[in-house]
């Protein structure tokens, strides 16, 4: 099942043009507030009618020049930023509004058992979002839309809901379109990323490909540019965790995850140091043998040094002075030293 979106809409001062495909898995729509991300999701749900284009789920056309399916006929699940639970119903009535099949499993999965007879007014923000997520999933949607579901929550509440989002995302088996402008959620959840700026799609692709390309750094906050690697917990030894990735083994401090679990690593480009020879006696845990594939300018006048480590790509942000001092050239072998940050189940 593939969700394909290709729409045009005039929204006040914003000309929205968005075309992308969302396969099974999580497609993140990333961009600043007001860029048009929510409008795209509303168009998929049928809450906003584009001026032209086409939206289809597999073979089923939801919208085109001659078709406009109303929201209740689209079979989409929608989790709103503000939860939108029905205030006059109990949690259980809210959950089963769109379908009761699988209620018990959902209640267990989302930890909602103690809340069933309560009403939304008495729930915390995190509890509300868990109910909203369960309610959307119980309607057995063919596509799940999440519009900044964590944006209204504070730090601890975000951390409370995120694992549920990750687990349901993995098990839902349908395309998931997830709107956010929070990098941590992108790294944690995204399989695909679609970057939207001022109503236009400026970049799209698999998250790891997009993050490995320095040219996409200008779409992210200063600290957020840098490669993202998927890895698997291989073993724990000597108080460290060994992860296997396409770039080779990567060490993390502490005992992280259980063996076999997969998680994401974020390697911010500003945190990668390069040396032309292997150095003994340095404190960073990771030193990978890499080859320079390209050196390109960044908008902030620094240089991006793209690297290949075995089958993975990463990059480092260096000042022109450093690049000149080391005499770095494409094709050259260098060692990359970095501290990795793991994101995912711990």
């Amino acid at each position, binding site marked *: 099942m593939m969700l394909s979106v290709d729409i045009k809409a005039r929204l006040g001062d914003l000309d929205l043009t968005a075309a992308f495909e969302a396969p099974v898995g999580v497609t993140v729509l990333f961009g600043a507030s007001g860029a048009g991300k929510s409008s795209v999701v509303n168009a998929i*749900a049928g809450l906003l009618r584009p001026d032209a284009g086409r939206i289809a789920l597999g073979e089923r056309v939801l919208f085109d020049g001659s078709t406009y399916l109303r929201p209740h006929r689209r079979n989409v699940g929608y989790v*709103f930023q503000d939860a*939108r639970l029905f205030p006059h119903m109990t949690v259980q009535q809210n959950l089963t509004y*769109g379908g009761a099949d699988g209620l018990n499993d959902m209640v267990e999965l989302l930890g909602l058992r103690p809340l069933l007879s309560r*009403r939304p007014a008495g729930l915390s923000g995190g509890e509300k979002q868990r109910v909203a997520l369960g309610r959307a999933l119980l309607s057995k949607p063919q596509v799940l839309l999440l519009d900044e579901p964590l944006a209204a929550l504070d730090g601890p509440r975000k951390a409370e809901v995120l694992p549920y989002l990750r687990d349901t995302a993995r098990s839902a088996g349908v395309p998931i379109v997830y709107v956010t402008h929070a990098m941590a959620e992108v790294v944690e959840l995204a399989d695909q990323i679609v970057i939207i700026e001022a109503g236009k799609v400026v970049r799209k692709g698999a998250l790891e490909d997009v993050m490995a390309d320095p040219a996409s750094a200008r779409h992210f906050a200063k600290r957020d540019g840098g490669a993202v690697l998927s890895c698997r917990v291989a073993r724990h030894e000597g108080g460290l965790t060994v992860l296997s990735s396409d770039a080779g083994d990567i060490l993390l401090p502490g005992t992280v995850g259980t063996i076999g679990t997969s998680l994401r690593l974020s390697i911010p480009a500003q945190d990668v140091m390069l040396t032309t020879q292997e150095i003994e006696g340095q404190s960073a845990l990771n030193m990978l043998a890499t080859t320079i594939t390209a050196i390109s300018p960044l908008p902030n006048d620094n240089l991006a040094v793209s690297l290949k480590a075995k089958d993975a790509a990463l990059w480092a942000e260096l000042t022109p002075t450093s690049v000149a001092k080391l005499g770095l050239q494409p094709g050259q072998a260098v060692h990359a030293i970095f501290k990795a940050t793991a994101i995912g189940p711990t």
Partner: protein
Amino acid sequence: MTFGPAFWEVVSLSLQVALVATLCALPIAIGAAWLLARRSFWGHGMLNGIVHLPLVLPPVVTGYLLLVVFGRLGAVGALLFDWFGITLAFRWTGAALAAGVMAFPLMVRAVRLGFDAVDAGLEAAAATLGASPTRVFLTVTLPLIAPSVLAAAVLGFAKALGEFGATITFVAAIPGQTQTIPSAIYALLQAPGHEGDVVALVVVSIVLAMGALLLSEWLNHRITQRRLA
């Protein structure tokens, strides 16, 4: 007459007229309020004007217009009589019609406030869960505007109970047929020696109006409390 059969006849007729008027006008008022609050269409302003006419016209004029339209010879009245044998003019049903028409604008206004206050996002959420517009209205919108519907019912009931001008013009004040509390008070004031009866009817009016108000406050309180449980 005080507290005699004639007295209770006036009171029970008034209650009957006001209740029937309120219950019949309420669904139509909800429909009109929905159209005005939620739909944009050609003639929106016109409909709004027509709904409010009984509020701004002299009640005698409204009564006269009812007589013209619903009288035995009126456009609608003749049809009702020919097809169903229904007569409204000078019957208690006519009094209920007059009271309902006069209460209608107040009820529409009260319900409309409810529609304006409902978060349209909740209705959108219900639609994404597969609920048809009818189901959304019955399971989400209507329960959420229940306090406003209640307020509209009380307001309409009080207005219907006190309606005088249009009623007396349309159906006169026939004892046992169309003589409600206001027209009875008016008739009693025309002849000397009935001050006691007038006071009794005034007290009953106050008790009924206050009772309706308290009942609605209590129901409203219950609805809100349930939502916070």
